[in-house]
């Protein structure tokens, strides 16, 4: 195979990664793995941004990816702190068992 990889190849790969992340969030019951699936979705979007940045000749995509990564780092820190606090109270990270607010 020769030639450059077209934009649509990157976009379809990114869509597939995003769909895999969605499946992970719906199927898994472990809060940490749900969190990892969310990170997977964020990375799929990052790939879309960088692909468009290259093919539309604009650096805006890469700048946005920089900020997405910074916000994702902050979100992971806080999310894991929440999970730790949750585990301390319930002794479990299974999201099926975290239903104190259920009526």
């Amino acid at each position, binding site marked *: 195979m020769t030639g450059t990889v077209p934009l649509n190849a990157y976009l379809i790969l990114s869509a597939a990664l995003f769909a895999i*992340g969605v499946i992970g969030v719906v199927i898994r019951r472990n809060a940490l793995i749900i969190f990892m699936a969310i990170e997977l979705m964020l*990375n799929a979007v990052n790939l879309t941004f960088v692909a468009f940045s290259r093919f539309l000749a604009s650096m805006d995509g890469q700048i946005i990816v920089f900020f997405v990564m910074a916000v994702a780092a*902050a979100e992971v820190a806080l999310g894991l702190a929440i999970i730790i606090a949750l585990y301390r109270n319930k002794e479990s990270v299974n999201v099926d068992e975290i239903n104190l607010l259920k009526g």
Partner: protein
Amino acid sequence: MEWVLFVPLAAMALATAVLVIVLQNPIYCALSLIGTFFALSGLYLLLQAQFIAMVQVIIYAGAIMVLFLFVIMLLDVGHEPPPWLRRDRPRVVVGLGLAALLLVELVAAIGSGMSEGIRGPHTTELVNAVGNAQLVGRLLFTDFLIAFEVTSIILLIAIVGAMVLARRQ
């Protein structure tokens, strides 16, 4: 030539991503996600976004996943039985159906040929002449300065929030 690099990287990204959501041991899932991040970093290099590729490895694989692994080992989470073992078939079917619908819709949107936009000024030649990291730095401190400063406040909030949430009462 680019296809020779793209196909293995894309295959590795997809395979490790599927492993993340399928494996039962959380440590294996975290390691698979690190593999996904490395594959994505390779794809960023293929797209000539060298700065983002390095930041991906340093921040995602080097900091965020280390944090994940620390928490997994700290909390001693056990293995979770697969959903089909626990008679959770409806949720698995709904989840896969929704994801398939999403994928079909996204591929239709991609294939409709609307993936065009206003071409910007930063062509590959210009970026390579200035340097990718230099150009990102220059833009961050001129056009995107406010967002840059606000990001530092976001990180401060994350630090304070994590310390408040995780301390012993």
